[in-house]
């Protein structure tokens, strides 16, 4: 049974794309206010889990459950899940030419019942953009159109900061960033968690230990072949760095398979 006290409760989740099974029984529970890291080899299905939880129409859920504070997410379309408080920071955000960031951000906030007056909105936006060291010209640029890799990541974090979700799924928010940009992004995530008074949970998909040093996850999950094969404290991330997935999975995989 889903646990309504739990922010995110995923149990036995299976998902396919083009009738190919990618998720093969994912179990994961994220309490309010916790940061969980999700690590694993390329192609293990981490991004698919992110898409499946946020309602990408290309993915079919074939078994299992996913609830947010006890509410079943699976029958809901992506926009309704977002309105419930699920946010996805995309690994590769798509460009939408002709739609300015400012129009888009206002439309998104309006759709989530978080509309501000024009003045309040601009004040908030200016503040958040300054925190993320984003140039003012971002406002009138088209969504992700011609953005550099680093600009895209910051723009995703900006959206999270403005929308204040319950659950933020961050799909490699650190990839391709230099040290300074990484710190800015990590600070942005931490600010959002702290600003939520311990309510917002984070599922952080990453390959690198560095962002975890900034964000200090409560739990680290290891993902392999479509499911969570090991979970542990922050030290697990260090072990991966030292041993590699192969070394580590060689040890833990059999245990998890019988679990």
């Amino acid at each position, binding site marked *: 049974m889903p646990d309504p006290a739990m922010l995110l409760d995923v149990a036995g989740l299976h998902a396919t794309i083009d009738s190919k099974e990618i998720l093969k029984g994912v179990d994961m529970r994220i309490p309010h206010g916790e940061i969980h890291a999700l690590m694993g080899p390329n192609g293990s299905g981490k991004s698919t889990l992110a898409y499946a939880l946020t309602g990408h129409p290309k993915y079919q859920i074939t078994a299992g459950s996913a609830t947010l504070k006890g509410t079943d997410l699976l029958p809901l379309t992506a*926009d309704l899940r*977002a309105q419930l408080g699920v946010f996805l920071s995309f690994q590769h955000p*798509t460009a939408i*030419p*002709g*739609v300015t960031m400012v129009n888009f951000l206002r*439309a998104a906030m309006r759709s*989530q019942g978080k509309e501000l007056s024009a003045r309040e909105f601009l004040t908030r936006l200016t503040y958040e953009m300054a925190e993320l060291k984003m140039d003012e010209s971002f406002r009138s640029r088209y969504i992700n159109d011609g953005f550099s890799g680093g600009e895209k990541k910051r723009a995703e974090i900006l959206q999270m900061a403005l929308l204040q979700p319950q659950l933020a799924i961050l799909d490699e928010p650190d990839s391709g960033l230099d040290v300074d940009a990484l710190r800015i992004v990590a600070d942005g995530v931490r600010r959002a968690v702290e600003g939520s008074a311990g309510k917002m949970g984070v599922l952080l998909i990453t390959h690198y230990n560095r962002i975890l040093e900034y964000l200090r996850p409560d739990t680290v999950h290891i993902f392999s072949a479509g499911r969570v094969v090991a979970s542990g404290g922050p030290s697990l991330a260090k072990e991966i760095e030292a041993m590699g997935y192969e070394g580590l999975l060689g040890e833990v995989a059999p245990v998890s398979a019988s679990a």
Partner: protein
Amino acid sequence: MVTKTDPLSRDYKYGFHDQDVSVFRTEKGLSRKVVTAISQHKGEPEWMLEFRLKALGHFPKRPMPAWGADLSDINFDDIYYYVKPVDEQLNSWDDVPLSIKNTFDRLGIPEAERKFLAGVSAQYDSEVVYHSIHADLEKRGVIFSDCDTGLRLHSDIFRKYFGTIIPPNDNKFASLNSAVWSGGSFVYVPKGVHVEIPLQAYFRINSDNMGQFERTLIIAEEGSYVHYIEGCTAPTYSSNALHAAVVEIIAHKGAHVRYTTIQNWSDNVYNLVTKRAVAYEDATVEWIDGNLGSKVTMKYPAIYLMGERAHGEVLSAAFANSGQHQDAGSKCIHVAPHTTSNVVSRSISKGSGRTSYRGHIKVLPAAYDVKVNVRCDALLLDEESQSDTYPYMDIDNPDVTIGHEASVSKVGEDQLFYLRSRGISEQDATALIVNGFFEPFAKELPMEYAVELNRLLALSMEGAVG
């Protein structure tokens, strides 16, 4: 994915119609008698009646276009060619008959006036019912009137240019217009005068089985500048209406003319318009052409680049909903050396809607050092919708640089998901993408028109969601 609502079903907000208030109309169908009656009713000079009757002679001889859209439903015998709604033209808004005033209130004419436009003209069926121009423009010699008044009060200029760019035998619908034309705008800008604020005209068809045949003539003398804007609407009737306008623009040496139109006819109007401009030495002509409504539109704004360094721009946007065919494009004829043209076309098709881009670039042997750039992009909103591109190029000089790019795309699943993952509904997400696609066009519009365009598109996309 199952879509429960039709996010782009069209809600035509100008679908209301007023009671017939006409004070005079000719009998249905086309004849010498009808053409003579129009001319006599207007008290025109003899040469204009002759011009009309000559054009009437050309009309049956000119073939229906065998290409483009399907025009087989047009019944020329079932059309009122002239309907006069009021006794005389008015310069005070208060004097406009209530039913007509209400219509233009809904279209936003009084607001336009309040915004201190340089001039406003409103045509209802065949005649211009309301007209005003700022006194200081009049003092500087600018003429902005309806075409009938232009003929009456400024016959020298009028006669010098009328029908010279688009002769009455140019094509079937130009012949028809030349025979029965009424209303439209006459604009004359003297040498060196810059008209800073746009001149605006509104055209409205209100009668059933009505043809509207306005005639617009714009003359910009050396070094002058003018921006002329028109908007068009019609109510929805069960039978089809015909709009066959003719627009002629003359941009003399170094003049700059921008012509902007947003046409939002109801979906039973045949919109068959001939638009042509000549640009002399160092002149610039820009056609900004938006086509949202109508059953069929066939319209290819043309620019003849007659003098050295003349420049032409055609920027068009078309939206074809189910049952609509927007066959639009452009023609750029490079006659002189060092001339340049730039064509940008954006079109969106939905349901059984169809958009076609038909472009003709011609470079004559004497025209060297010519630069041409054509870009047309089509967006399809579903599996059924359709778009075609017909680019024609006749290049008779080797010293020409031509860029041509065309693309057809569908609303991307990734784009939709990105917006929806932020809480934005499918309808609103589609509307945002559609607006974004039209942005290169919208940003060229005066602000109130850009807002209106966005609003019209959003309205079309609201569907059944409350």
